[in-house]
């Protein structure tokens, strides 16, 4: 084990309780994946609730999804997929000691996150303008909805995209953090675990959106 340092060879960054860089790298990676599992389970439960009510009130969900603008959702999907790409190449750049390119890629990723949030903001504002609020605050008569429970659709819409949006913001913060550390020269071909961890988080956040988009915007 101690001789297999192909993943991460530098000894300067090994914390005191690890034997070597490999053990540290493998522990970190397992920890990140386990944490991602909890994220998936958390979103999993809300997907289950969505599935149950979608089965109970299919027409209501169809009516709700018509109010969403799939073009905006689709744009956001593209933006996030592109940001996943820039996130991934930033790690490759760090592994090749091309820090400048890596910083550029990370900055692009943050920018994509910001574009996503701005588009989301306009979508939200448009809904608010039309009076499409969650359950308690929606005036069914005023918006002329067919289904009395249409507020629940928007409950799901805001809860799911809101929770996802919070994750995007957290992800942007984390990417900023690893970008600053990259600028400081803390990451190089021997040490990049935090960047990879943040990258995995960002990909999972993207992945969740890739499920949210068809469920909310496209499935009638």
């Amino acid at each position, binding site marked *: 084990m101690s001789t297999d340092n192909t993943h991460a060879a530098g000894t300067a960054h090994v*914390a*005191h*309780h*690890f034997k070597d860089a490999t*053990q540290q790298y*493998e*522990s970190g990676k*397992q*920890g990140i994946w*386990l*944490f991602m*599992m*909890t*994220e998936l*389970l*958390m*979103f*999993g*439960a*809300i997907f289950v*609730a969505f599935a*149950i*009510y979608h089965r109970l*009130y299919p027409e*209501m969900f169809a009516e709700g999804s018509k109010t969403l603008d799939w073009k905006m959702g689709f744009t956001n999907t593209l933006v996030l997929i592109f940001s996943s790409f820039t996130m991934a190449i930033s790690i490759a750049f760090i592994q090749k000691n091309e820090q400048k390119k890596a910083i550029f890629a990370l900055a692009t990723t943050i920018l994509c996150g910001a574009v996503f949030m701005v588009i989301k903001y306009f979508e939200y504002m448009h809904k608010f303008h039309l009076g499409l*609020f*969650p*359950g*308690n*605050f929606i005036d069914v008569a005023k918006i002329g909805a067919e289904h*009395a*429970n249409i*507020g*629940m659709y928007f*409950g*799901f819409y*805001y*809860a799911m995209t809101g*929770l996802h949006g919070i994750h995007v913001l957290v992800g942007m913060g984390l990417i900023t953090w690893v970008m600053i550390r990259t600028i400081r020269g803390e990451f190089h071909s021997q040490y990049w675990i935090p960047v990879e961890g943040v990258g995995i988080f960002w990909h999972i956040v993207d992945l969740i959106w890739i499920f949210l988009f068809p469920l909310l915007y496209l499935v009638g």
Partner: protein
Amino acid sequence: MASHAHGDNYINCEKGLWSWLTTVDHKRIGLLYMITVMTFFLIGGIMALLLRLELFAPNAVQGVGGVLKDGNVYNQVMTYHGAIMVFMVIIPGIPAILGNFFLPLQIGAKDVAFPRINLLSWYCLMAGATLALLTLFFNKVDTGWTFYTPYSIRTGASTVLMVLGAFIMGMSSILTGLNFIVTVHKLRAPGMTMHRMPLFVWALYATAIIQMLATPVLAITLLLLAAERLFGVGVFDPKLGGDPVLFQHFFWFYSHPAVYIMVIPAMGVVSELITTFSRKVIFGYTAIAYSSLGIAAVSFFVWGHHMFVSGQSETAGIVFSFLTMLVGVPTAIKMFNWVATMYKGSISFDTPMLYALGFLFLFAIGGVTGIMLATLPINVHFHDTYFVVSHFHYVMVGGTLMSLMGGFFYWFPKMFGKMYSDSMARMSFVFTFIGFNVTFFPQFILGAMGMPRRYFDYIPAFEQLNKISTVGSWLIGIGFVIALITIIQGLRKGEKAPANPWGSKTLEWTVQSPPPHHNFDVEPVVTGGPYEYR
């Protein structure tokens, strides 16, 4: 053990409050958890005493009963007793105190895999608990610890704050579990194969799996409940087309596995105690280790037994009833193996062993009544009666708390390098054990007679048994006060503890008491199983 120079162990290597609040040493974090959990246990315990005092007499007869102003106050005290004991005492109890301290030592590691995250988990618990207890200064929560909808949506209490507190405490639990899983997989000493790990580590590992898989579902459930109150998303609110029973499904999908988060570590401690004090290799090591995983696996498929009368289908009821009984199998495997371990062993009745035996006795009752409650037709009669209250107190208090005390007295010399007064500790056991049975056994009878749980009052026919139960609660209280005095006395003027006072075989007893800052001066190399007595 040769005498060491000043500052040779984890307690005195650094000084000052700040060094404790910023420590990343798993042993110190274990002690931080210990102080926190003991404090919460004191608060939750006083509330329990108040509840029992209120139930001393039916309210119609104003006397000693009637200490609480009215039924609303009773509901609030009951809610805080439940929430504190569940989220702040029993769930973090054994894993975060004893697990944090001894998991790395038992597998020959210098620390857990992520020491800073370990500290973060303690701060999460503190932050969550602070939020939850802040509600005491606003509108006190009266929903019970289960936050059932739709009442929790409608009540004027500060449910949102409480629920966010529980959410953050859940993060603490997830982070602890994550740390333990990675530590077990990646940080074992050379030669420490999975099948040479002490059974306490196996138990913590199984617990960590549940913590990781179940807690996220609670997290989203509590967030949705908060969103329901703040924005009316409609998921759980029947007025908006939602289904309050879905909340119960989600809640128990976490909270039933959570009772195994509470009890599996207790079983791990008991495995250590029984083999040590029987001076005999544990019987059926593999069976005990894998039955922990078995319980963890089955635990995810039994939540519906909380909902037999909530309007779920009869088919679902029958399936859940059967699956629930399945939990009895791995549990019984453990029980029989412990008893078989004691058979022809040279048993010594030191305090930890007394607690372990207390665990076996009480947990057997708790377990068997669990099978009774799993039986669908019987459950319909016992549902929401004191029979259920008694059952889960036998498991949670009789099981987990007995084991926590036993484990604490077992490892006390290692943790603090001091011995406590054995006779005092035995006395605390006698009071808690007898007091426990006096308190909770009558509640089985009360439940069978039909006394509903969660009520602040009862008909005069139940008075006699309630009086006995309340007297029992005083005995438990005395037992824990004696235990506290024992601990304080031991800390202040206990004799210096040797490295291995009980003649145990696991790795933590090979280092000095208290352990050095980095656990092992030389990395241990393991060549055999954990319990090679004979």
